[in-house]
Structures are given as C-alpha cells and as structure tokens.
C-alpha cells in the first residue's frame, strides 16, 4: 500500500503523455465521445420506434445481441479493419453504447401512459408535438438511465482498450501486468474504479433532476430503470466490461 501511495506522490507519474492527467483526459474524451455518438444514433431511433411502435422486434433483438457479445471481443473484432489505437477503440465503444440506450429509449417510450398521449392528441397536438412535449419528457428518466448504463459500461471498456494498443487509464493496468509493477497496477485500478463510480453517481444525479415536474412527488412506483436487472425489457444495468 505504501508503494501505491509513493506511486501517486511521484511527480514523474503526473507529467507527459504517460502521466495521470493525460491518461485521464484520454479516457474521458474516448468514453464521452463514444457515448455521445452512441446516444445521437440510438435515441432518435428509439424515439421513432417507441412513437410509431414499428420495429420493436428488431430493437429487442439488438438489445439481446448486445448482451451476448462481450465488450472485450468488440475491441478485438475491429482491429483488422481499423488497426490498433483510437479509431478502433472508438468504433467498438460506440457500438457497445448503442444497445442499452436504444433498449431503454424504447422501454421509456412504451412506459408512457397511453391516456396522456391520447389526451394530447385530443388537444389537437401534432405527432411531433406529442413526441416533444408529452412522450419525451415522460420517458426522459428511463432514456437517461440507458445513457448511464452505457456510460459506465463504456468507461469500463475503455480500460480494456489499452490491451489492444489504446491509451487511456487502462495503460497503467496493462503495463502494470506486463512489467509485474504492482504499485502501478493497483494505482491504475484505483483510478479506473474511481472514474467508473463517479460516472455512475453523476449520471444518477442527472437522471433524478430530469424527472418531469408532473411526476415528481407522485406515488409512482419505481421505473423499469430502477429495477434494471430484473425487468426484462430494460437493460441489465451497468458495466461489467
């Protein structure tokens, strides 16, 4: 343990390309970009499917497939196409982030009380108004739960990117294993675990803040996202990458 503290106190580990700040920035940029692109792809598709009810079977299939293909394998599969490094890692992580976001967006939309949609329709709302002002606000917490699950999973898997020539915080762990350097190994693990837990907490807070005002303080039961592992339609929660 002293050796780990010494590792953290060594200024050499805080400067340059292989310093903690640079690796942390690499990790956050890689993960953030992947989740952003994944969300930009998955949320519109999920909203469309949820609103029209078309293509539900395909959505569920994508969700199940995403569950069966392990994250580590994703990183390896694209190497022949994209080579080692950032593009490969980004492509793999984007693909990884899509199933949870898509599944939860669809689940969130399907959860929306049909009566509310009908009421909106009765008030003369157009389809896109219904989507924007009724369905999306009501579904938002579940959608964001999907983004949270994806984000934690991506942060975890970005660590594995180091095993296929990527940078980011996983570098410390991969090098620690390779060099039998225990302090570096444990320090890397602490950094990665810390980042994952912080990501999870931050996303949970964001989720809670976006609960529609109309639903706040109501006696509504837990959303499917709260029950993420048990509820079959929603994503089985978080990373395990």
């Amino acid at each position, binding site marked *: 343990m002293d050796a780990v503290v010494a590792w953290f106190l060594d200024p050499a580990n805080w400067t340059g390309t292989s310093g903690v700040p640079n690796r942390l920035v690499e990790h956050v940029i890689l993960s953030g970009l992947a989740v952003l692109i994944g969300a930009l792809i998955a949320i519109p598709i999920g909203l469309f499917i949820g609103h029209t009810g078309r293509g539900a079977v395909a959505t569920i299939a994508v969700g199940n497939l995403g569950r069966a293909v392990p994250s580590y394998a994703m990183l390896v599969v694209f190497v022949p196409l994209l080579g080692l490094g950032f593009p490969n890692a980004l492509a793999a992580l984007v693909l990884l982030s899509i199933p949870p976001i898509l599944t939860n967006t669809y689940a969130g939309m399907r959860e929306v009380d049909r009566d509310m949609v009908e009421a909106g329709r009765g008030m003369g709302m157009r389809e896109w108004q219904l989507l924007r002002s009724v369905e999306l606000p009501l579904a938002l917490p579940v959608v964001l739960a999907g983004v949270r699950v994806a984000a934690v999973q991506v942060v975890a898997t970005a660590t594995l990117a180091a095993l296929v020539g990527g940078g980011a915080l996983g570098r410390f762990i991969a090098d620690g294993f390779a060099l039998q350097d225990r302090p570096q190994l444990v320090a*890397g693990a602490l950094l990665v675990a810390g980042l994952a837990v912080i990501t999870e907490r931050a996303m949970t807070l964001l989720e809670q803040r976006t609960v529609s005002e109309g639903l706040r303080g109501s006696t509504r039961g837990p959303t499917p996202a709260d029950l993420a592992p*048990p509820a079959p339609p929603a994503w089985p929660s978080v990373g395990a990458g």
Partner: protein
Amino acid sequence: MAELLRRNGGMLADGLVDHLVLTGIAVGVGFALSLVLVLLIVRSRRLAGPIIAVAGTLYTIPSLALFAFLVPVTGLSLVSAEIGLVSYTLLILVRNILAGLDGVSPDVVEAADGMGHTRLQRLVGVELPLALPLIVAGLRIATVTTIGLVMVTAVIGQGGLGQVMLRGFSLRNWDLVYASLVVMVGLAIAADLLLVLAGRLLTPWTRRRAA
C-alpha cells in the same frame, strides 16, 4: 473453415470446456451466495439497502481494475478469476430473487400462514417456487454476462475461449479470433436457451394459466 477446425479444433474444444467450468462455478457460487444474502434481507429488511449498495459498487468497478486489485493478493489464479466473476453475478441475482419474492401475492402468503406453514416452510414451499420465473430471468442474465466476462479473465490466464482469442490476436490469426468468438456466442445462446427450458419445466403452472 475445415482447415481451421482441423488445426485448432482441439484448442477451441479445450477453451470451450474451460469456459463452461469457469462460468458454472461463478454462477453456482454466485447463486448460493445470493440466496444467503436474500435470506438475510428477508430476515431483516434494513439490510437490503447496504447489501444492494455493496453489490452495485462491485458491479460498477470495471473488470480489468477488479482483477488488477485481486492479482497482488490471490495471484494469477482461478481464485482471482472466480472472485471477480462471482462478484459481478451478485447484483443481478440478489435483485432478481428479491423482486421475485416481493412479487408473491400477499393472499398466497396469508393462505400459507393459515395452513400452518412455518416461516421456512412458507419460503421454501411457497414463495421461492412462485418467484422462480424472475429467479430464472436473473440466472439467464448472470450466465450470459459471465460467459462474456470470462473473455476478460483471459488477461490473468484463466480465460477459456478468451485465451484462444488472445492467442489468435497475438499471432494475428484473425480466423482463430473470430472462431473463438463464434463458439463463445454460441455457448451464450445455448446456455440461455437451456435456462429458458429449465425454467419452463420447473414452472408448469405458468403455462397452464396462459393456456
């Protein structure tokens, strides 16, 4: 294809067996441990929060980091791999078993009490069987997740098919990489289907009601 199988079939078969053993131990131990934890929660509801919080934190820690913590303590061993794998099954299983028990109708519980069941008889004879569909759902998720995670335990030398994938990767033998993945996904699908089937056989009443 035939060439690949002829040359690497043995390695793939060995990997498959190792993969099955690693997954079986992890899900088996994880399930036993989860049952114990759920029994504790059933006895004292106050434990639910802390137990789920700890399981949730374990679940959030990236697998590579978890193995990095474990290796200095337990070495590049089966024990390290299984500690990691078991800890990832806990959240899924505890939550599903609990959700299953909570879903049992209070009327049924009362009827069991009225028939003079003791607390244990009620749990084993009434509540757990009725919770089976959700328990099986949890086992399915835990099993498929574990099969995927065993690919990562290859990093600490306990990987089944992950080991085959790593070897293919270091030799730049992409056919071998893809073959190991195909076998792994096949294993995941087969395990999932088997659990669905087992769940159906164990809960005949759910179908009779539907029919």
